[in-house]
């Protein structure tokens, strides 16, 4: 930690930073209101599944917003970032119009800044720790918006910098899964000179960034540019390949693979196990979003169908629930309703997504929980019974526990229900390795260095955490890369 703080101090003391700080008085900076993200109007955006809602800051907006940052001597914002981006440095680079340098600062520690700028829950991370939030009681610097601005600027400039890679060391590494954990791992290992191959079970590379998060929040083109960047660094991608099935771990070892990073995700949807849940028209958010995002089911050009509903209920209060409910609106639902067992304050979704959903006419039935479903004679759901809840004492998660209100059941007519109450680890990969230690929840057990009970096998992301965020998965990928490098280098010395 001290090395980091000394490094930060050194960077902060650079002449340009000191000069920049003198440009405006503190009071001048703090009196500027936080920028508002330009957006596509709700009536317009709900007509399209693939039109991004946030348009991104203009250069003028970004410059003003960057000038709000005080360039604090103790930048607490960095403590809130799981990958410890040097936030003041990239923000100040924006302020002095060095957008390329701002992007490079981001890429030093984050493999996917254009993605994180869009999907990170900044209000619970960097922005929550911002001086404006903690000390001034004002709206924080829009760090996420600025991150996106710098990353987008670099991408659109056509001058994407490819990070420098160490000379090839000839060591073959396999990354399993192609979501954020794996991509950040692959990037770091490529920088260290390893020969990295990413294996993906689906036909499309990108994991949850492609099958899960809709394009109105994260356009595929943004992800594709990041993938292209990794390819330029020498990372190889293989789709339609399930390690442990298509070929075994031992087969890959025979091919010369020396290290494995398993980041196969939490792709096993949870259901609530309530009566009627297997009726047609009730599906997991994974199924709904996969059909629409990965298989293109909303368009007639594609063969994969997706059920549509007039009244769609989405169960849950996380980002996936918001993605699903907003998707249903875009697919023509007359009523789209979030049914969440706690209150809005406890919703795990990004605040921005909840606000966007509300702007788009999504109804919120909070403090309610489905207890039973009913169907027509063909087995298609037509009604759900919800029980109303009230908040009791805080539970293990620190959030107030929802308690059922006796006799409060209510029936609601619905014809499509999307269950978005979380996911469990995907058992496909662990089941191929009987000697691998897994928890009773099916997550892979790893030490602080992300190493599993099999020394050459490291793991990270949701297969370890059971269901977290893009940025935490990326943090795991980076940590695993550093540890695997240390392990493989040490092993070499011992030979």
């Amino acid at each position, binding site marked *: 930690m001290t090395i980091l703080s000394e490094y930060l101090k050194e960077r902060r003391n650079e002449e340009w930073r000191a000069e920049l700080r003198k440009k405006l008085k503190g009071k001048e900076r703090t009196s500027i209101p936080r920028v508002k993200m330009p957006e596509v109007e709700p009536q317009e955006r709900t007509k399209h599944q693939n039109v991004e809602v946030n348009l991104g800051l203009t250069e003028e907006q970004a410059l003003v917003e960057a000038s709000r940052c005080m360039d604090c001597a103790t930048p607490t914002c960095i403590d809130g970032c799981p990958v410890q981006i040097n936030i003041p440095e990239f923000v100040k680079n924006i302020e002095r119009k060095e957008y390329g340098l701002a992007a490079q600062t981001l890429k030093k520690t984050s493999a996917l800044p254009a993605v994180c700028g869009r999907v990170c829950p900044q209000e619970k991370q960097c922005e929550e720790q911002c001086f404006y939030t903690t000390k001034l009681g004002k709206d924080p610097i829009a760090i996420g918006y600025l991150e996106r601005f710098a990353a987008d600027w670099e991408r659109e400039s056509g001058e994407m910098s490819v990070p420098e890679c160490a000379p090839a060391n000839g060591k073959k590494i396999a990354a399993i899964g192609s979501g954020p954990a794996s991509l950040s791992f692959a990037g770091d290992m490529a920088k260290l000179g390893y020969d990295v*191959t990413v294996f993906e*079970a*689906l*036909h499309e590379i990108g994991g949850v960034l492609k*099958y899960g998060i809709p394009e109105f929040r994260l356009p595929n083109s943004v992800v594709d540019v990041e993938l292209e960047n990794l390819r330029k660094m020498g990372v*190889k*991608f*293989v*789709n*339609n*390949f*399930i390690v442990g*099935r*298509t*070929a*075994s771990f031992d*087969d*890959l070892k025979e*091919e010369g693979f020396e290290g494995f990073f398993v980041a196969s995700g939490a*792709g*096993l*949807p949870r*259901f609530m*196990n309530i009566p009627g*849940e*297997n*009726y*047609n*028209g009730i*599906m*997991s958010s*994974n*199924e709904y979003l*996969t*059909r629409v995002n990965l*298989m*293109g089911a909303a368009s007639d*050009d*594609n*063969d*994969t*169908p*997706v*059920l549509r509903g007039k009244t769609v209920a989405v169960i849950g209060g996380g980002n996936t629930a918001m993605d699903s409910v907003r998707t249903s609106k875009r697919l023509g639902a007359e009523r789209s309703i979030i049914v969440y067992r706690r209150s809005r304050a406890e919703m795990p979704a990004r605040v921005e997504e909840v606000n966007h959903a509300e702007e788009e006419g999504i109804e919120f039935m909070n403090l309610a929980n489905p207890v039973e479903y009913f169907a027509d004679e*063909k*087995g*298609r759901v037509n009604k759900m019974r919800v029980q109303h809840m009230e908040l009791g004492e805080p539970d293990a998660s620190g959030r107030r526990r929802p308690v059922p209100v006796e006799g409060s059941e209510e029936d609601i007519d619905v014809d499509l229900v999307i269950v978005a109450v979380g996911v469990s680890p*995907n*058992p*496909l990969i662990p089941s191929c390795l009987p000697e691998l230690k897994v928890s009773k929840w099916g997550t892979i057990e790893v030490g602080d260095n992300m190493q599993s009970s099999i020394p050459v096998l490291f793991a990270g992301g949701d297969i370890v955490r059971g269901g977290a965020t893009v940025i935490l998965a990326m943090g795991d990928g980076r940590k695993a890369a550093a540890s695997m490098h240390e392990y493989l280098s040490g092993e070499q010395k011992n030979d």
Partner: protein
Amino acid sequence: MHIQTVISTNSNFMNRIVDKEFLSENVVKIVVEAPLIAKSRKPGNFIILRISDKGERIPLTIAAADEEKGTITLIAQKVGVSTEKLAKMEVGDSLHDLVGPLGKATEISKIGTILACGGGVGIAPLLPIVEGFKKAGNRVISVLAARSKDLIILEDEMRKWSDEVIIMTDDGSHGTKGLVTEGAEMVIKREKVDECIAIGPAIMMKFTSLLTKKYDIPTQASLNSIMVDGTGMCGACRVTVGGKTKFTCVDGPEFDAHQIDFDEMMMRLGGYREEEKKDYERFMSQV
């Protein structure tokens, strides 16, 4: 060696179709180059394929594999847009995507006498299981059933791995006139059966299961639920087994037939019927 080819071409195999044959008017057999799957597959496993970049992910059980030639055999019945398109592919064409092997393999050991019941296109996934049980030293009696003679597929192959094959047709055009359950019951009454495998239309599996339950014979059924990813991710293939929700793709495709809620399974198979019908009509009007 194959792994290296896959990695260096930066895409998967060619997935080239090397042989194609119609087993009946609506049932097509294709043999596809897939050396890694041919090597790693086990009886009961399935694959998922896509015909084009706009195509559905279609799950199909692997009917046979030739490890030396590096090929797998797939058998599909034309039931909708995607299978119509598949049946139109020719030798030399390549599948856009192919992934597998998926699903749990059949548990095969020496048990004694196996009664293998196959209905219609369900005979295809039954073939590698019958082969496996025969090779493990079991006595295998196969009962193959279909509406009429031309819908009985793979009869020669099944004979190769069965001690006895009984053919049942609805119209009596081949074998004995009657249902699969009648053929099965004849065997059960005749000799001791240690285990039964049933693969075919849901209704056929349901009644076979009811029959073997009456005689207390452990029975496995292999389900053909609707799937999207086939890797446990979506839950479209969920089925109630013993009162618990299971995923056909990762927990199956074979389950204890006596525990399966077949009525729910049949209801769920119809979940996209209207969408499929509309798509099929549109497709057929274009070709």
